[in-house]
C-alpha cells in the first residue's frame, strides 16, 4: 500500500526578482508504509529539497504530494505544521539544534507544542538518551558537545514524538563506524515498529545496508531507481 506519493513534482526557487532556479524536475515516487528508502546523489542535486517537500517544510511549485491520502502539496502553513509535528521526525543535515539549550531541552522541544507534561517529556527523553548514549551529556549546552553527539541529539529529537515517518538527511555524516552501526540498529527497531524511513546519503555503508529496501539516485534534479 502506497503511503507517500509524489506525482510530477517540480520545485523552483526564486533567487532574485527575475531569476529562478529549477531544482527538481518531474519527480514521481511512491513509498510504501514500513519501507526504508535511500536517496543518493552528488552534492547540489536536490536531495535535501526533496526531503523537505516530503517533510512538509514547504510545498512543491507544481505537482502533487500526498501522505495517507492527504494532499500536503497545497496545504496552508497552519495545517502543514500540524502534519510536521504529528507525522514526521526530521533529522536535518545541519542538525538545527538550539545552541543555548541543553541536550535534554533540545530533545524535548517537539513535545512542547503537543502539550505533554514536563515529567512525561523527561521520561521519554531519558529512554532516548540511554539509547543513543547521551545520558552523561544531558545537562550540557549543545554548543559544548562534539559533532557526533550533536547528530545523535538531533536524531533523538526527531524520534521523541514517535512519528510514523522518519526522514534522515545524511544521518551518518558525523558518526564513526561503530555509531553508524548503532544508528542502524535503532533504525531497524523503528522499522520493526512499523515506521517508514526515508534517508539521503552518500555513505556507502548506508547505501549498501540490508535494511534499505529501495535505492534511488538523484542527479541534476531527476530521480531514477537504482537496481
Amino acid at each position, binding site marked *: 500500500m502506497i503511503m507517500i506519493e509524489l506525482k510530477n513534482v517540480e520545485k523552483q526557487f526564486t533567487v532574485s526578482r527575475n531569476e529562478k532556479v529549477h531544482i527538481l524536475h518531474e519527480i514521481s515516487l511512491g513509498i510504501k508504509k514500513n519501507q526504508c528508502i535511500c536517496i543518493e546523489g552528488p552534492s547540489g542535486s536536490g536531495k535535501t529539497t526533496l526531503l523537505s517537500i516530503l517533510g512538509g517544510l514547504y510545498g512543491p511549485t507544481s505537482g502533487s504530494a500526498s501522505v495517507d491520502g492527504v494532499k500536503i502539496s497545497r496545504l496552508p502553513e497552519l495545517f502543514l505544521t*500540524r502534519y*510536521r509535528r504529528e507525522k514526521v521526525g526530521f533529522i*536535518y543535515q545541519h542538525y538545527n539544534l538550539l545552541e543555548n*539549550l541543553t541536550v535534554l531541552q533540545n530533545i524535548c*522541544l517537539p513535545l512542547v*507544542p503537543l502539550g505533554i507534561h514536563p515529567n512525561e517529556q523527561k521520561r521519554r527523553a531519558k529512554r532516548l538518551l540511554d539509547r543513543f548514549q547521551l545520558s552523561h551529556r544531558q545537562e550540557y549546552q549543545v554548543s559544548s558537545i562534539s559533532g557526533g553527539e550533536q547528530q545523535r541529539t538531533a536524531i533523538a529529537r526527531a524520534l521523541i514524538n514517535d512519528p510514523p515517518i522518519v526522514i534522515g538527511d545524511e544521518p551518518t555524516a558525523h558518526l564513526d563506524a561503530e555509531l553508524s552501526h548503532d544508528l542502524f540498529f535503532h533504525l531497524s527497531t523503528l522499522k520493526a515498529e512499523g515506521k517508514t524511513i526515508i534517508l539521503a546519503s552518500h555513505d556507502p555503508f548506508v547505501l549498501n545496508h540490508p535494511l534499505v529496501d529501495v535505492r534511488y539516485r538523484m542527479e541534476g534534479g531527476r530521480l531514477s531507481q537504482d537496481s
Partner: protein
Amino acid sequence: MKNAISRHLNLLDFSLLSLLRNRLKNFGMFVVFTLVVFFLGSFQLFTSSLQFMSDQLLENVPDITIQQMSAGRQINMNGDLADRLSHIYGIKSVTRRIWGYYFDESNGANYTVVGVESPASSFSHLLPEGTDLSASRVIMGEGVERVRGLTGRKAFTLFRPDLSQQGFEKAAVFDPNTRSLTSDMLLMHMDTARSLFGMQADEITDLLVESGNPAEIDTIAKKIRAALPGTRVITKEQIAKTYHGVFGWRSGVGSIALAGGILAFMILAWERASGFSREEKRETAILRGIGFQAADILSIKIYETFCLSLTAFLAGLVLSWMHIAFFDGILFKPLLLGWSVLKPGFSIIPHVTGNDLLLLFCLSVVPYWCAALIPAWRSTLVRADSVV
C-alpha cells in the same frame, strides 16, 4: 481544552526559559520599565494620597469660619460677636475657637494650639469617649508627644509670652490614624489656651458656623458679612478651592501620564529595533520546523512580554509605594510648595485604591503589550524552511 491548557503551560515554561537565556537584554528592559512604572506610580500615589489627606482635612472644616480683620491682618476678636448672629435664619450652631501656633524654642517645633469651649465641638469624632478638658488637661497629637518625649510622662510646661511657665497635663493622645490632621496639635480648653497665649478674658481668634442646609451656606455667609462688617467670612468651599489650588497641577497629571505612555512606547520602539537578530530568526525557524504553530510562537512572545512587564510593574509599584511611604515622595516635594502654607511639616500617608492600580496598569502595561504585539507577530512569520 485540557490539552490546550497544558500546551500553554508548556509554552509558558519555554518563554520563562528564553527570558532567562537572554538575561542581559531582558534585564535592561526590566529596569527601564520599572522606572517608568515607578515615576507614574509615585505620581499617582502621591496625588491620590494628598487628595485623600485633603479630603480628611476638609471633613473637619466648618461650613463658615469668621475672623476679625484689621489693617488687612487677622486679629483677635471678642467672643460676644457670636450673639450678633443669632437672628440669621439657617444657622444651626455657632462655636467659638482659639486657633494659633506655638513655637517651641527648645526643639524648634511648631505646634498647632486649638482651644475649644467643650471637646464635643468640631473635634468630637477624633476624641476618645468622654474626654475631660478641664483645668490644664490637653489632648495631643502623637507628633507632639514624640517631640516632647512624653510617652512615659504626663506633665509638661510651655512658656507664656511673658516667659512665665504654664503647666499642662496630657489627658489623651489622638488616634494615630488621623495623624495628617492631628500630629502637631494640642487641643485644650479655651481658658487654658487664652492663658498660654496671654489673651484677654473674652478674646477668641475665630467663630465657626454650621448651617443646617449646605445649599444655604453662601446666603448665610453674605448675611454674616452684613451683620459683622470688618470680618473675613470664609466658606468651606473657598477653603476647598485653596486646597485644590494646591492640586492645580493635578491636571498636569494628563501631560505626565501621557509622557509616561509615550515613554513606554519608546522603550518598545527601542526593543523592536534591537530585537529580532539572526539568532532569533534561526531559532524561530527551527521551532517552526519542529512543529510549533505560528500561534504558538506568538504565545511564547506574548508570555515573555507578560512576564517581563508584570514583574516590572510590580517592582515599580513597590518602589513607588516605598518612595511615598518612607521617603515622603521627596522627588515630587518641590511640586508641593504651596502645601506648607496650609500645613507645615507634614508627612504623607500612602493611600492606594484599586482604581489607581487599574489606571497605572492601563497606562504602562497595556501600551507596552500593544506595542509588542506587531513585532511579535512579525517574528512568527519566519518560515520553517529558512534553515534547511
